């Protein structure tokens, strides 16, 4: 997997107990390397979407998709074309703020990155930032100089561009 690229695979799964276990277990069992995995509801209440970011070569990616598709609780799976995809990630960052000068420096950075300050205390700020993972990485890199107390990232969620959706079985 050393020469692989980061790819996004989207799986539509039954909204039932144990499904996330069987999906994550598959990745461990088949030795697939996941970078991030996110789960959430879809437009249909009995289905969830699992978005998986993997670092894999073509052959491994082919296996990821086929092995996922083989799981009974996976009703649809697609590998997204990296050229026609919208990906988003959300991060909450708690930054230490020793002086007022630094507070205003941080806030101007937040504006540049179109983030929002969501909590303020005498020694800290909490910032919410949304975007591609690269953008979040860049913001975090800047904040390192001030000191990150705590960080929570959601991992990537994604949809393909255009009207087509992941095909699901009836």
């Amino acid at each position, binding site marked *: 997997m050393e020469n692989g690229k980061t790819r996004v695979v989207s799986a539509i799964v039954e909204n039932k107990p144990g499904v996330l276990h*069987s999906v994550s277990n598959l990745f461990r069992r088949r030795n697939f390397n996941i970078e991030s995995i996110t789960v959430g509801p879809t437009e249909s209440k009995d289905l969830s979407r699992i978005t998986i970011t993997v670092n894999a070569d073509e052959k491994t990616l082919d296996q990821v998709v086929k092995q996922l598709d083989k799981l009974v609780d996976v009703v649809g799976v697609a590998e997204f074309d990296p050229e026609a995809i919208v990906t988003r990630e959300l991060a909450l960052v708690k930054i230490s703020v020793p002086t007022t000068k630094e507070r205003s420096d941080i806030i101007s950075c937040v504006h540049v990155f179109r983030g929002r300050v969501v909590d303020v205390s005498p020694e800290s700020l909490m910032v919410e930032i949304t975007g591609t993972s690269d953008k979040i990485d860049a913001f975090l890199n800047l904040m390192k100089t001030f000191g990150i107390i705590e960080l929570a990232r959601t991992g990537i969620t994604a949809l393909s561009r255009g009207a087509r959706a992941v095909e699901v079985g009836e």
Partner: protein
Amino acid sequence: MTKISGAKALIEALERQKVTTIFGILGGAILPVYDELCGNKNIRHILARHEQGAAHAAEGYARASGKPGVCMATSGPGATNLVTGIANAYMDSSPIIALTGQVPSKGINSTYMIGRDAFQEADIIGITTPITKYNFQPRSVAEVPTMVNTAFYIATTGRPGPVLIDLPKNVQADKAEVEFNNRIDARGYNVVCEPDLAQVSIAVDLLMKAQQPLILAGGGIITSNASDELVKTAELLMAPVATTFMGKGAIPEIHPLSVGTIGMHGNPAANRLISEADVLFAVGTRFSDRATANIDTFAAEAKKIHVDVDPAEIGKNIDVDVPIVGDAKITLATVHAALAKKLQKNTDSQWAKRVKEVREKLSPLQRDIPKDIVPKTLLFELRKLLPASAIVTTEVGQNQMWSALYYKALQPRTFISSGGLGTMGFGFPAALGAKVACPERQVVDIAGDGSFIMTEQELASSVMENIPVTVIVLNNSVLGMVAQWQRLLYGKRYMAVHLGKTPDFVKLAEAYGAQGFRVGSIPEFQKAIKTGIKSKVTTVIDVPIGSEEDVVPFVPPGCGLPQQRGDY
């Protein structure tokens, strides 16, 4: 509608699936189901002596009959003891249904008991997720019938496999109005049986142009009952048929085009010819490492066509030129029909001559057969003593590889062995399951002393339930296959492989009420087999053999199939 218990709903749903046999052991958490079986006239319960035996018996039943086998156990240790058998069925794509009891999902005062480490609780759903095709845990009685339908549907269709239903005790005992129907609830499960015709046509063109085609028949041929289509296609192409270990019996091994099994301990004729083939037509195989040996040199000269009903097998182990997702029987019939329109059978080709030459020169049974009491002679004699329809199971290790090399399977579903998982102790309970499925046929377990001891307690089941089979213990007082590796690959540094002279297998058989013979010559062996296969009680034949006997030739780890070593 009257209310019935979950246990009754389960049994009725099993009856609707035409289940006639359950192999199992009871316990506290499955008592309501056993209570429901009490007095039931349609389902025979066969009491195993260890749950592993019940699971292997269910698999033996399934593989001999083609129908799903059912095993049952209580929660906790009962369920975990099934695990090896379930894993075995998963690796060998056998349709079995495992039913397990579970602690109540609701306690007396409505507390949730699953997850509280109750007595004999084990997370069997979590444990078996990677070794089942699917598993279920009903939360209410009403779910049971559809769940059973779905379990059987998933277990038996496409690439078959084990399915487990974990039944919380309260769901077994509770009563509710239950509707029986044929509904199946598996939205994300779909099976493609019909091959893509464009792919078939590319494959047909390739086969038409092939000068040296070879068909590799895997276990999928046996699963989909495609032997007739296989043989017809081979005869039309005049292509030799090699099988994988799991495919043994897909073509009668006395057929002039049959060249034996490929693999680490394969028939040298098969291993040679697959390396010379220009087109490899592989059907129903997953290209296991033991079959292919080093993949870089596997069928290196050949364009490869791969047919499998499981899309995930395409491109998993071997890169192929023409992938076809489809059922083996349907695909072979389609390919045969297309070929028959265009192709004239040519029995005089260079390749046909080459196949005949290699087959006669390299096949082990074409060479000397000693008069001594050695595995080759024993298995050669065994074949002569058994009718074509007799079912042979094997244990795992040298006994298994000798059987692959020297025992010719003449019909599909007559050679049943633990291929993928390599489970010692599989053969004997599997033989019992096969005998229950096919009571009119003779069933023989070719065993080693190390393997037989792992599940010999099922002698008790075989005697008490009147399931007579014949066990041949090739007794070399050693865990032979690993001893062979230590001898050949670890400089004869033997560690933990010697078993000594215990037990006395004749006395062991007698202790269980079975009969035992010890034989010291080929005529004695012949006599014991003739007695055993006619006997109304299980027969254990102890055959002492040399402890330094190797399975040869073999392909050392890392080498390719043609690099087989050892005089044979």
